[in-house]
């Protein structure tokens, strides 16, 4: 019996997301909406979550004099564009360059993490090689090691290969993560049936070919989630970039700290810069919030 491979139709439904229950809509509805205590508390928590970001927007849209006024202003002003322009034109901070740098670093790291995690996750789930279990245990253990504390030798290493100060220095150490491998592995176990791989083998496909054309398409949902989480983590990274990057190569977070910590007491400028640094992730979050929430919950459950 020969089987043809249909990568477009996964035989097992991707288990990450359960479609929302829609039958509830037809069920009876309370006529008047009275918020329960639970909803009131949740509303309060949500306001608390959002308020500092709203406050940032308020301050970013005010002239600098307003910021030190008492009581503090709580409604947006009209200076947002002026302040944003001042950030973008500030030559010391190089904000535009920082945005480009952050995009570059985050994208390269994301592509690599996704690719390498897919490869290793697939291998750990489906390929039989000697030492697979201990090696997997090692990968898991790396998640618990505070590698950040190796920053002094890492700095020495980067100096030695003449990368200290430059963008590769903040990219190279983050091209692989144990978390990504584990996440993909769990997904492969559920979503890629052995029969499919056997069929591909019988059709004469090599393992790399099978991975590329059969497995990879099936992994799209989990890889998308992994990509989102990785991108956000890289975009927000602070300590190592702050330490290793020179003045000519700031990322957004480093530029922000320079804006806030340096010679400026211009809080409107600082807040406008902070706003600019947060907005790209806010857009990603609004577009893909459901997937990001799902990914974090999945990741936590795996432990």
């Amino acid at each position, binding site marked *: 019996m020969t089987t043809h491979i249909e990568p477009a139709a996964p035989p097992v439904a991707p288990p990450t997301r359960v479609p929302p229950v829609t039958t509830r809509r037809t069920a009876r509805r309370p006529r008047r909406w009275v918020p329960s205590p639970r909803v009131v508390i949740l509303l309060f928590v949500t306001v*608390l979550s959002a308020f500092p970001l709203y406050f940032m927007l308020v301050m970013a849209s005010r002239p600098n004099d307003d910021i030190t006024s008492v*009581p503090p202003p709580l409604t947006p002003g009209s200076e947002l564009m002026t302040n944003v322009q001042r950030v973008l034109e500030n030559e010391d901070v190089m904000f535009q360059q920082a945005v480009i740098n952050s995009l570059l670093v985050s994208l390269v790291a994301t592509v690599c993490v996704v690719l390498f995690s897919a490869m290793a996750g697939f291998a750990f789930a489906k*390929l039989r090689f000697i030492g697979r279990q201990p090696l997997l245990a090692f990968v898991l253990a790396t998640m618990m090691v505070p590698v950040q504390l190796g920053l002094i030798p890492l700095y020495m*290493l980067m100096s030695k290969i003449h990368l200290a100060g430059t963008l590769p220095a903040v990219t190279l*150490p983050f091209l692989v993560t144990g978390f990504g491998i584990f996440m993909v592995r769990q997904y492969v176990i559920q979503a890629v049936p052995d029969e499919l791989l056997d069929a591909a083998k019988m059709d004469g496909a090599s*393992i790399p070919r099978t991975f590329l054309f059969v497995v990879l398409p099936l992994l799209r949902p989990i890889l998308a989630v992994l990509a989102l989480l990785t991108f956000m983590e890289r975009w927000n990274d602070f300590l190592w970039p702050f330490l290793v990057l020179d003045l000519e190569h700031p990322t957004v977070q480093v530029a922000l700290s320079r804006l806030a910590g340096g010679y400026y007491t211009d809080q409107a400028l600082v807040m406008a810069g902070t706003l600019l640094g947060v907005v790209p992730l806010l857009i990603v979050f609004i577009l893909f919030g459901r997937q*990001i929430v799902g990914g974090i*919950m999945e990741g*936590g459950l795996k432990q």
Partner: protein
Amino acid sequence: MDHTRPAVRRVRGSRGSTAEQLAGYSFISPFFILFAIFGLFPILFTFWVSLHDWSLLGDRSWTGLANYTELVGDERFWTALVNTLGIFVLATVPQLLMALALAQLLNRRLRGLTFWRMGVLLPNITSVAAVGIIFTLLFARDFGLVNWLLGFVGVENIDWQAHRWSSWLAISVMVDWRWTGYNALIFLAALQAVPKDLYEAASIDGASQFRQFWSVTIPMLRPTIIFVTLISTIGGIQLFTEPLLFNSGTNAISGGNTHQFQTLTMYLYEKAFVGQEFGYASTIAWVMVLVIALVAGINALMLRRIRTAV
């Protein structure tokens, strides 16, 4: 016999064909090569550096454990250690309790499920640097929103950076704002995995809501609680950005006039890149690894009691 073999082959067997073995090793090799160079080597080499007097320029001389004995007598180190642990406890305990409560609230039938979940996660997608900058403004002495609000209940303007307790509190608020919702989602995922019939059985036995929470939920959540506590410990002991940005001015790394909120990572950074003493800074790093292991061990011991206490 022969018929059953293919079915279990892939699950149990550890030996594939040569091609399969080769593919396996090459597929996992990027991780191991990159991790060896940029993860494992630096953390191990840190120990080697810590046994030397090692300057930024690379001049070095063997000193054995001298850095460690110096560290034990270093008042600044103890200050930083106490600060780090103090902020860690002040931030983590309420954070995990709030996260657990929040997860309970979210674990019901709820209109706008995704909206609420995104709502609690929103702080977490905000960068640490942004959090530090925004909250430092909120905690400003003369015109900050927090002091203004406290004024209504008769509290005089607090100079948050000036005292140990107030700076710890402010920094803990930053940490908690960013992480409570994230941990709530992890707890929520675990709550949803608790079998419903456990609760049914408990309520048939006449257990109250509280009793159910204490005797069913908490024990079932134990692995997750251990995991979240461990992650919080690893992150908390390495706290850096919030206290750094909380201290404006040119000498931000010092963590205040009397180092009242300088954390271990800040002290490490100061020694390495301001003082240019790589050896001594590496000693701090290596001791931090030990502190993390120690705190994680204490946590595990304490959490082991959850099951026995019931």
